[in-house]
């Protein structure tokens, strides 16, 4: 317990933890600010008056054109007579083309652009995005904490105090997961509060019935589990590579190039449902609860072949990958010399 507490403190006292924490909170404030300033519950009197003025001006100009057969004789419109494209056009058509839209009468609505943030509709995806970004941050933080300890020599120091390596590794993983869970839940609560406040003041809350809570809490729960998995993955890769850069390189390599290569390979093999080779597909299935892949390779078929990936299947695959890498890291830590 002492070791766990000191690992927790070590992780919290790192400068990178502080920087990431500040960045995450600032990011949330910016996101809420964007919703806050882009959302409104309806146009103000001033906006309405301006929009009505615009509509009246457009309608008036069109009426003036229709009523004045010499409208296009003024120097301003002289070029219309010189352009052969408008030679055979009637006066009404010219009016419709240049100063109006025929029979359509403009209203103030045409000049008002109102976006209303509806909490019930938009917050779930935003909150899941927050959980995934927090998971990515924790993955970097966990890999950096383990990697820095190897490169600084702190690991050797710690093992001189605590020769039971499994205990050390367990304490480090537990501390990383605890910080991750606390950070993700904390950020979700903050995001929820900020978005709810935005909806109350600047938008609409919508209907938050029991079905809404049930669906979204389940989805958010899976997002939190995913971020914990990402934390364990980051720590395990750093433990295997004994350097932050190696863990970061593997993660960035997969995100940037690996997934693309997998897709190219799938295309080259002409396999059905090539998307199933991408981890993003399985992550999507895990979060959403289910994902359907469609295959149209049979051009004569009326309906595509469908492959359904459920959250359970995605959980098994993603969990298996994380567990496999964690076991490898554990084995490596247990057996390899500490130089």
């Amino acid at each position, binding site marked *: 317990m002492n070791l766990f507490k000191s690992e927790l403190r070590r992780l919290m006292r790192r400068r990178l933890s502080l920087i990431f924490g500040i960045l995450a909170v600032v990011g949330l404030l910016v996101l809420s600010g964007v919703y806050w300033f882009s959302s409104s519950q309806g146009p103000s009197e001033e906006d309405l008056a301006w929009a009505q003025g615009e509509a009246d001006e457009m309608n008036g100009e069109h009426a003036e054109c229709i009523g004045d057969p010499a409208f296009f004789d003024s120097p301003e419109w002289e070029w219309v007579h010189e352009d052969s494209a408008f030679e055979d056009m009637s006066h009404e058509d010219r009016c419709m083309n240049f100063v109006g839209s025929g029979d359509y009468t403009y209203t103030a609505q045409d000049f008002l652009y109102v976006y209303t943030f509806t909490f019930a509709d938009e917050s779930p995806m935003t909150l899941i995005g927050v959980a995934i970004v927090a998971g990515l941050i924790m993955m970097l933080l966990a890999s950096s904490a383990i990697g820095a300890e190897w490169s600084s020599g702190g690991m050797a120091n710690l093992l*001189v105090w605590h020769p039971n390596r499994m205990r050390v590794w367990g304490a480090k993983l537990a501390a990383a997961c605890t910080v991750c869970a606390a950070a993700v839940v904390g950020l979700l609560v903050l995001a929820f509060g900020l978005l709810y406040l935005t909806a109350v003041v600047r938008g609409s809350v919508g209907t938050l019935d029991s079905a809404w809570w049930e669906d979204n809490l389940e989805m958010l729960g899976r997002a939190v589990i995913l971020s914990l998995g990402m934390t364990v993955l980051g720590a395990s890769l750093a433990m295997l590579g004994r350097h932050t850069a190696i863990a970061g390189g593997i993660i960035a390599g997969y995100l940037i190039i690996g997934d693309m290569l997998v897709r190219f390979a799938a295309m080259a093999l002409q396999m059905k449902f090539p998307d199933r080779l991408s981890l993003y597909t399985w992550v999507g299935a895990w979060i959403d609860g289910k994902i359907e892949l469609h295959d149209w390779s049979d051009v004569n078929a009326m309906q595509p072949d469908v492959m359904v990936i459920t959250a359970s299947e995605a959980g098994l695959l993603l969990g298996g990958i994380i567990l496999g890498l964690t076991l490898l890291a554990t084995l490596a830590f247990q057996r390899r010399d500490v130089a």
Partner: protein
Amino acid sequence: MSPIIEISGLRKSYSRAFRQPHNALDGLDLEVAAGQVHGFLGPNGSGKTTTLRALLGLIRVDGGTMRIFDQEVPHRLPDVVSQIGAVVESPQFFKHFSGRLTLQLLAESAGVSKARVEEVLEQVGLKDAAKASVKGYSLGMRQRLAVAQALLKQPQLLILDEPANGLDPAGIHHMRELLQWLAHSEGVTVVVSSHLLSEVQQLCDSMTIVSRGRRIVDGKVADIIAGHGESSLTVRFPDAASLPEAADALKEAAATAPEADVSAVVDRDRLVVKGAAEAAWVTKALADAGIYLSELRAETKNLESVFLELTGTAPVPGETVQIGQSVEVPAPAAAAAPATTGDETIEVQAEGAER
């Protein structure tokens, strides 16, 4: 009373691509008695740090046994680790943490009180710098911090790899007094690995010298120095051209006298004479040959000369001693027999060795 540290036949080899494996430890034996400051010496690459790392469970060994406080390590290391404080190789810490926080985290992890952190900071002279981040510490300050973390647990066994590294003269003096006080007043057993031989000579009660992963000699420092390293005389002449003539004269005189084992070797501007019972015999033999000396000095035996002799790393004019060129010690089974290195012969066990 059984030794605090007991190592027997320790082996460790590192595999190398396309080359023979490197035997870092090749059947090493080591014993350290309680309440002593024990020096652990050897040339670079002789296996000192590997041995200490193996003792502390940082590396796996290929063979042999190790016991600390009568417990087999590394299997029972968790049982005795609370009594061991150690610094292995260069002190390294997380550079953004302060000295105090570094110690506090270690103390917290092992249930050591915060008050003890302040005590050791005071003890190693880092109290005023405790708030500063380790990034700004000099090598000497990091060394002090490393020793502080080793002392945190109030250990009964202190293992220090190059503790004087980077310390200023006052720091070295302070460290020496601290370690001797710990050993002789507090009963702490201290194992020190160092290349500062004059420091080891002043600090240590006993020592083990290793070469190429095997023990050459062990015992009390004074006994080893007395038992090895022939005393010699340095002779200089007004004219350096007399040196070969003087050497021949001494050899001729030795051939007809009881001093049959006398050797006289020209070393740059001096003549080094070994095996002469008295300095007077040298002056007489030279005077009889009509050669008059300008200086005659008896060379005092010291650990450096003994070390260089035993490890076969004495510098030869015009040559550089390469890493791994130290003396090869026969396997432990034949340890009682003399070991041969080139033209010279050395006894593997010191006459003054305890065992």
